[in-house]
């Protein structure tokens, strides 16, 4: 499974790419591979406050709806509009065009609690 070196990971299989005081959030290659056939993405509301460890979005495969947990506290500042017509981008490009939302970090220290690529790789075996 692809686990890029420049990202931080949550135990619940989300990643975050930090750029200054904002972060881009998505789900990992491992997560999309487990879910397969993603057919719908229910994003958070633009401007919503998300909380680390709390459900922020829902990703639906053919089989099941899965909560996506925000890796950090923050305010949702941008959504990936492509996903409404092409939800399968989460399968085909989980770290790039399949990103879910951008967040303005309100508690950057939380990043320290997230996993390094090596730790996440060890988690998923």
């Amino acid at each position, binding site marked *: 499974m692809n686990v890029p070196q420049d990202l931080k990971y949550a135990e619940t299989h989300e990643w975050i790419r930090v750029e200054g005081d904002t972060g881009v959030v998505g789900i990992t290659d491992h997560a999309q591979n*487990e879910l*397969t*056939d993603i*057919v*719908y993405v*229910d994003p958070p509301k633009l401007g919503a406050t998300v909380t680390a460890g709390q459900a922020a979005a*829902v990703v*639906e*495969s*053919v*089989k099941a*709806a899965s909560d996506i947990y925000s890796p950090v506290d923050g305010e949702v500042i941008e959504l990936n509009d492509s996903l*409404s017509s092409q939800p399968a981008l989460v399968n085909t490009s989980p770290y790039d065009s399949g990103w879910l939302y951008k967040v303005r970090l309100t508690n950057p220290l939380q990043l320290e609690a997230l996993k390094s690529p090596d730790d996440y790789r060890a988690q998923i075996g």
Partner: protein
Amino acid sequence: MEATNRRTALYEQQKSAGARCINFGGWEMPVQFTSIMDEHHAVRTACGVFDISHMGEVFVLGPQALDWLQGMLAGDLSKCPADGAQYTFLLNERGGVIDDLIVYRIADDNFLLLVNAAKIAEDVAWLQRHVIDGVTIDNRSDTMSALAVQGPDAPRIFREVFQCEMPVRNTFVAMEKCRGAVIAAGTGYTGEIGFELFFSNALAGDVWGAVLQAGAKPCGLGARDTLRLEMCYPLNGSDLSPGRTPLEAGLGMFVALDKREFMGRDALLAQKAAGLTSKLVGLRMTEKSPPPRAHYPVLVDGQVVGETTSGVLSPSLNEGIAMAYLPLELAKPGQIVQIDIRGRWFAAVVAKKPFYRPSSPRPA
């Protein structure tokens, strides 16, 4: 000791074919191999094979078997010839569904009941409770395996595996001369042409290997569910329950109210005389929405009028489909409803059943 999930005789073969397993009715079963979408389309356009060994094989034997089953099952076995198969129900006294099943008439004193995995113990206990002299209930579920091979390419695969023609719909043949004692039946749960095979666990590896070798794609329960729901075939425990009758489920054509007395008949006659108050309908999403799933509220004019019993994004139609029991006056094609998905309401319409009509030609 903690109860663990049971595994079929094909567990190892399926794991090595890439199966991802889930718990289903106490069994560790493949939900998918590659992807539910791929497997669904394979069955609609080519051929897929499902391990259905978790389902129950219950034999009803003895000189009184036919007469006794006529009193226990809702369908009319006199309309089912020898070597024929019939979709039918075990009903409780209130006419509610204990289980839906296929009965295979091997001989007048030998019937095979193919029952749902989660209901084997309950069905057998129910049958034992009502059994009479001259009838024996023989539950062979633990020693028998089963495969469903489904799709337009199934007849070719059957010929390749068995060197003879596939049985026509709702009939079966005993294949003693080929691959050991396999019962091959023209039945299924996908809407496509195809066949189901029943055999002892010892033959499982050989039969599975032969079917794969002939070109069937391994499929899991995920695709089995999307395929059956496109056809509006009910799933017991979701769309059927002890509190609902086959008449409410829209399956009255499988109930022979005009045959002799049978379990649940009085309740069904009373329900018919009083008039149904609700009916199981098909719902089709009419706007972009998350896929509908079971237990979502169904609303009309802001009032909850029912809840979905099953729901999925239809891979063939690429739109959300569901079933729900609705009050009779709303259970008409064209009725507009809303489905509450995580607090948001999405428009849907009562659709004609089935949602999908297979293109593969059916044998006569």
